[in-house]
């Protein structure tokens, strides 16, 4: 069953709105910097891809949630507007008649980790419960459902770095199974000190701008952002087309063609050396989409710039898709963790429509151990299917195949 992508909203370090972010991917500029909102104390400075300063920086009475949920709300609002369900700031009363689910991936957004609260607790200062209240009220899926008054199923996926991809796959299945008419699906994650220190402790953060798939790569740069896709059943889409101009989608041509997911069952922090789980996830995704590997026009790779991820992923791509151009957008966005899969799926849709893919930022020299290179300059492509994939901590591997209707 075809599941439409009728709207997209997203924000990341290269743009506070989705169009700006997409345009930035095609420009040769990127500027990770030390974190603006918190300090780290390490011998080296580790740059991050942080959102520009904005009203999102601090919670207020209108948006009292954790930053991760605030980002998700911004992306969801933009996605609903893009889909035609919401005009400017008008309420979306017509959605209340439909079964609308919310499925959002995150990592930080599901964690009780307020550092100041814990420092005070540890020092027997009996801290106030405001940070705990905020955490309890900030489940990203619940917040988005509450803000837009949506009554369908709510699910927050915490599959580490594949969370966004998995959330979109689950939302797709909700529509296929007839549980929902519409799903807001995607991912959201904020930069925080705890995560930054965690990745630095694992020795997989780079003190320079990251270089996915490059021979000299030595780790990732963390980032933050959110992306939400409005997934829509074919039936609702057709009804909207017939019902007139009130709710016409502005960008209805893309659809989720298939998804696949598999686990390495190998190691907590390292991918399977031969990419066992990734191969299986890709095979499942192709089968679900009922297409063959040679129908894939391009691949938006996970490409974190860690030694292990890029080696494993590069070898699998070389073996399964030897002639398909691929790239990583993390050189522009950083690794946005639970948002990454959603942002990359959203970028994939935008590139299918644009008929152009960007250079893989940060790559200059092929790694002989991989012997397979991402593209180094923007190029056009033929075909109507593209692949967006995520490899995650814990051995999760997930893939989405996104299609574009032919004119």
């Amino acid at each position, binding site marked *: 069953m075809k599941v439409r992508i009728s709207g997209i909203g997203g924000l990341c370090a290269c743009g506070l709105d989705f169009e700006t972010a997409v345009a930035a991917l095609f420009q040769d500029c990127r500027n990770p910097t030390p974190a603006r909102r918190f300090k*780290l*104390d*390490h*011998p080296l400075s580790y740059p991050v891809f942080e959102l520009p300063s904005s009203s999102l920086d601090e919670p207020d009475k209108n948006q009292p949630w954790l930053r991760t949920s605030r980002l998700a709300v911004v992306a969801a609002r933009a996605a609903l507007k893009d889909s035609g369900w919401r005009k400017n700031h008008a309420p979306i009363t017509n959605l209340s008649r439909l079964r609308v689910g919310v499925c959002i991936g995150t*990592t930080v957004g*599901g*964690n*009780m*980790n307020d*550092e100041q609260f*814990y*420092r005070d*607790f*540890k020092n027997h200062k*009996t801290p106030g*419960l405001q940070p*705990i209240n905020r955490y*309890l009220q900030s*489940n990203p899926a*619940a917040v988005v459902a509450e803000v837009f008054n949506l009554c*369908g*199923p*709510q*699910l*927050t*996926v*915490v*599959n*580490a770095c594949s969370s966004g991809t998995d959330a979109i796959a*689950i939302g797709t*299945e*909700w529509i*296929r*199974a007839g*549980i929902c008419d519409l799903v807001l699906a995607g991912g959201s994650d904020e930069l925080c000190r*705890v995560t930054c*220190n*965690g*990745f*630095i*402790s*694992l*020795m997989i953060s780079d003190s320079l701008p990251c270089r996915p798939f490059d021979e000299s790569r030595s780790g990732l740069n963390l980032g933050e952002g959110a992306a939400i896709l409005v997934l829509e059943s074919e039936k609702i889409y057709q009804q909207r087309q017939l019902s007139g101009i009130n709710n016409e989608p502005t960008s209805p041509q893309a659809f989720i063609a298939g998804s696949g*997911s*598999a*686990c*390495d*069952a*190998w*190691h*907590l*922090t390292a991918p399977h050396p031969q990419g*066992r789980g990734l191969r*299986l996830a890709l095979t*499942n995704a192709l089968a679900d989409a009922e297409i063959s590997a040679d129908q894939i026009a391009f691949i938006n790779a996970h490409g974190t710039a860690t030694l292990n991820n890029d080696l494993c992923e590069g070898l699998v791509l070389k073996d399964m898709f030897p002639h398909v151009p691929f790239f990583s957008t993390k050189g522009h966005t950083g690794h946005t963790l639970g948002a990454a899969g959603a942002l990359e799926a959203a970028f994939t849709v935008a590139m299918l429509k644009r008929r152009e893919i960007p250079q893989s930022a940060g790559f200059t020299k092929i790694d002989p151990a991989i012997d397979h290179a991402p593209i180094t300059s923007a190029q056009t492509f033929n075909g109507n299917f593209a692949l967006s994939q995520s490899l*995650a*901590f*814990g*051995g*999760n591997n997930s893939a989405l195949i996104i299609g574009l209707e032919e004119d």
Partner: protein
Amino acid sequence: MFPLAINGIGPVGAFGAGMADLKAALSNDIKITPEIARIQTRAGDYDLPIFRADSKPLAEFIKPRKLRRLDNFSRLALLGAVLAVKDTAMDLTGPQTGLIVASAHGASATTFAFLDSVIDDGDALASPTMFSNSVHNAAASHIAEHFAITGPTLSLTQGSDSLTMALLTAGQWLESGRVDTILCGVIDCYCDVLGYCWQSYHNQSKSPKPKPAPGPGEGSLFLQLSRIEENAPPPKYGYLGRIELNRNAPPAALPFINTGTDCSNQLISGSGLKTVSDSCKNQLQINLNRICGGLPVPTSFDLAAAASLISDKHLYNRYDRQKTAAVPTTETICCWQPRPGIRQKPLTGNCYWITNHADLNPGK
């Protein structure tokens, strides 16, 4: 999508590990003695009963060397999973098994242990082991590795609805043919911060109502679920019937209460029940708080208690306000959880049904 066959159950809580321990606790055959923690709050110091779960039985199944880097959260999850698999004796290896792990709060104790390393020793000496285990899907990774499960794996968090959403996803995966069998569970652990919050929230409460549970608990519950195969023998624990979202409370019971009809074939179980106990006082209820404490996913052990009641045709520890005589004929049990923080009436919540009829559409 539903019903699904419940082939094996692995419960771990303050009552012990495994279905035999759970049934013994429900029958009052074993006494639960909670640990007492001294909690310092703004309003004074309090002794709080903590219903701890013990992961030591895991050593019967897995060599201690393999467990040395696992935190308590992953150990309790792994123990629940091992017990569920042992209960069914099925081989879950390979890509046709899916794994779903739900939790309201994840490995919070490990997150705070990671922060201990940062606060005590500085950013540069933060513990990579603690960080790795604090990631939400670490427990799922350990379980997948142990059983060589290479199918889809999902970790999720949705507050008190976490188990319901896990079960909904399990039904979807089986229905779509994505997998043939699923190991699905819920896990939450106690930590000192949680005890502090528990007591502080209770101190703040101006409600004269009693506390929902005597103290916080911890534990895991794992299920081995599959589709119903034609001509297959009945599953060990009956069937997971349909799941309903945003259902009024109490499910399918209001008409009975209003008309005074006997509702002995419809039970509601669950810690969350206290919230609605006044409105469904004629219902037969099971009270699990005293054997596992209060859990962030209150319906965690309801499913195990309901399934054992269905399979054994025996009502353990009946909590029956009206002292009605009927019961062990029960064929359908509804586990309902009100949405937290929602004050409007009628209350709504998500629920799932346990039944002994493969063809039953329970509650309709």
